C-alpha cells in the first residue's frame, strides 16, 4: 500500500483533472456530434427522411454497404490466417510480416488510394492492359473495394495477434493429440477461443470500412448515384451548400459510430468475463 500513498493527489488536483478531461471531451467530441444531429434535423423529420431516401443517397448507402460486405469478410479471413500463422508457427520474416500488417495505419489515406490509381488507372502500370480488355477498376466498385481493403486490413489481425500469442499452442496441441484434424482443431478449438476478440476486430474493421473517406475519394471518381459512398456523398452535398441533406446523411454515419460503440462496449464486457474465466 506504500505505493498508493505516494500516488495520492490533493483532492483539488484530482477534481481539476477530471473536470478538464470532461470539458475536453464535451468540447471536442460531444459538441460536434450534437451539431451534426441538430443540423440534420433542423428542417424537420420530413426533410431528413427525404434527404436520406432520395435516389442518390440510397445509391450511396447501398454502395457503402456493398463495399463493406466485400472488404470486411476478405480482411476477416486474411486477419485470422495471418494471426494464426504469426502466433502458432515459427518462421523467418515474422517480424517483417507484423510490421507490414501495421503499414496501412501509418500511410496517409491519400496514398492508400493513389497506389491503386498508379497500378490500375488509365495511365497506370496495368492501365492499357485493362482498357484493352474493357475491365474497369478505378472509378468503379473494384477500386473502392481495393482501397477499403488496404485501409482496413490491420484491424482484425492487430486484435487477434496478441490474443492468440498469449493463448499459446497448448489447446491446439491437445486437440491434435486427441486425434482432431487441423480443420477440426481450427473450428472447434481455435475459433471459439478467439471469438470475442474476432468480433471486436470485425466491428472496428466494419466501422472504418463504411466511414473511410480519403482513400476511397481518390479512386471513386465521384460519379453521383454510381461511385459515391456515403462519406463522399456527404462531401458532394456539402459543397453544393445542401447543408440539411449533407448533415442528414452524416447523421446516419454518426449513428453507425454510436451503434459500433455500444456493441464494442458490450463485447468488451463479455470478453473480459471470458478472459477472466480462462485464467
Amino acid at each position, binding site marked *: 500500500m506504500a505505493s498508493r500513498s505516494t500516488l495520492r493527489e490533493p483532492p483539488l488536483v484530482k477534481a481539476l483533472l477530471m473536470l478538464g478531461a470532461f470539458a475536453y471531451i464535451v468540447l471536442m467530441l460531444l459538441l460536434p456530434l450534437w451539431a451534426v444531429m441538430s443540423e440534420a434535423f433542423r428542417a424537420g423529420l420530413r426533410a431528413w427522411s427525404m434527404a436520406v431516401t432520395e435516389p442518390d443517397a440510397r445509391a450511396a448507402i447501398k454502395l457503402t454497404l456493398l463495399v463493406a460486405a466485400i472488404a470486411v469478410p476478405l480482411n476477416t479471413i486474411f486477419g485470422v490466417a495471418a494471426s494464426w500463422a504469426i502466433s502458432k508457427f515459427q518462421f523467418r520474416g515474422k517480424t517483417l510480416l507484423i510490421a507490414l500488417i501495421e503499414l496501412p495505419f501509418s500511410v496517409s489515406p491519400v496514398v492508400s488510394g493513389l497506389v491503386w490509381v498508379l497500378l490500375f488507372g488509365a495511365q497506370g502500370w496495368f492501365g492499357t492492359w485493362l482498357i484493352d480488355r474493357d475491365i474497369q477498376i478505378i472509378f468503379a466498385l473494384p477500386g473502392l473495394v481495393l482501397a477499403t481493403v488496404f485501409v482496413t486490413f490491420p484491424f482484425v489481425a492487430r486484435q487477434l495477434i496478441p490474443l492468440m500469442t498469449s493463448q499459446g499452442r*497448448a*489447446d491446439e*496441441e*491437445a*486437440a*491434435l*493429440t*486427441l*486425434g*482432431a*484434424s487441423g480443420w*477440426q482443431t481450427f473450428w*472447434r*478449438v481455435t475459433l*471459439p*477461443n478467439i471469438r470475442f476478440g474476432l468480433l471486436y476486430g470485425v466491428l472496428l474493421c466494419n466501422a472504418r470500412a463504411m466511414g473511410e473517406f480519403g482513400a476511397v475519394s481518390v479512386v471513386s471518381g465521384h460519379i453521383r448515384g454510381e461511385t459515391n459512398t456515403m462519406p463522399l456523398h456527404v462531401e458532394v452535398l456539402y459543397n453544393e451548400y445542401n447543408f440539411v441533406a449533407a448533415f442528414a446523411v452524416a447523421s446516419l454515419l454518426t449513428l453507425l459510430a454510436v451503434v459500433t460503440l455500444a456493441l464494442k462496449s458490450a463485447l468488451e464486457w463479455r470478453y473480459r468475463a*471470458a478472459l477472466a*474465466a*480462462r485464467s
Partner: protein
Amino acid sequence: MSIRIEGVSKTFSDYPALNSVSLEIGSGEFVALLGPSGSGKTTLLRIIAGLERPESGRVQFGGRDVTKSSAASRGIGFVFQHYALFGHMTVADNIGFGLTVMPRRMRPNGAEIRRRVTELLDLVRLPGLGDRFPSQLSGGQRQRVALARALARDPKILLLDEPFGALDAKVRRELRVALRTIHEELGLTSVFVTHDHEEAFTLADRVALLNHGRIEQFAPPAEIEARPESEFVRTFLA
C-alpha cells in the same frame, strides 16, 4: 505397447536439444524422464507424441514405425502441465472431444459417448462434475479431467508433461496414487516428464536421467541410487 527410440536428435536454433538418444520402454512400464531444465526431457516426450519432429532417428510403437505419423494418428494420450482444457466446453465435452472428432463411420453415437464420459469421470473420481466448466474446478480436478480426456480413445500409451508441476504437495500425492492405479488398471505404457527426482523415484519403474540432450542413465530407481553411472547422476541425486 512398447516404445523404441533409436538415435533421435533434435536441434533448436543452435543448441542441441537431443543428441542421438536411444531408449527402449517395455509394454506396461511406467517410466520417468528426469533431468534439469534444458536437458531435453520435454523435447523427447514431445517427439514420442509426434508434437515435434526429430531431425534424425526413429520412433517405433510396438514394432510399428511412427516417426513420420502425425500426433493425431499415433493413438496416444497426452497430459499437459497446464491442463490445456478447452475453456469454452463443459467437462463432459472436454472428455468426449477425442470421440467426437473421429471419422463418421468409426464415431460412437451420442449415447455411447455420454456413457463413456460417465465411465471416465468415475475412473478419475470426479463423478457428476460433467456439466461444470473447467474454470469452476480446482487445479487437481482440472488435471484429473485432462487425464480422463486423454484416456477417452483408449490409448495404449500415456504421455504426461510435468503433470503435477502446477499443483500443491497434497494434491500432488493424491494424483500420483491415482495415476499409478489407473496405469495398472488399464495396462498402459506411461512416460512422464519431471524435474523432481523424489517424484520420479517413488512413481516410476525405471527412470531415464537426461543431461544436455543425452541419457546419462536408464535404470530402476534402486539401481540408480546404488550404482550411479556418472558424476552428473551422483550430483543430481545429492
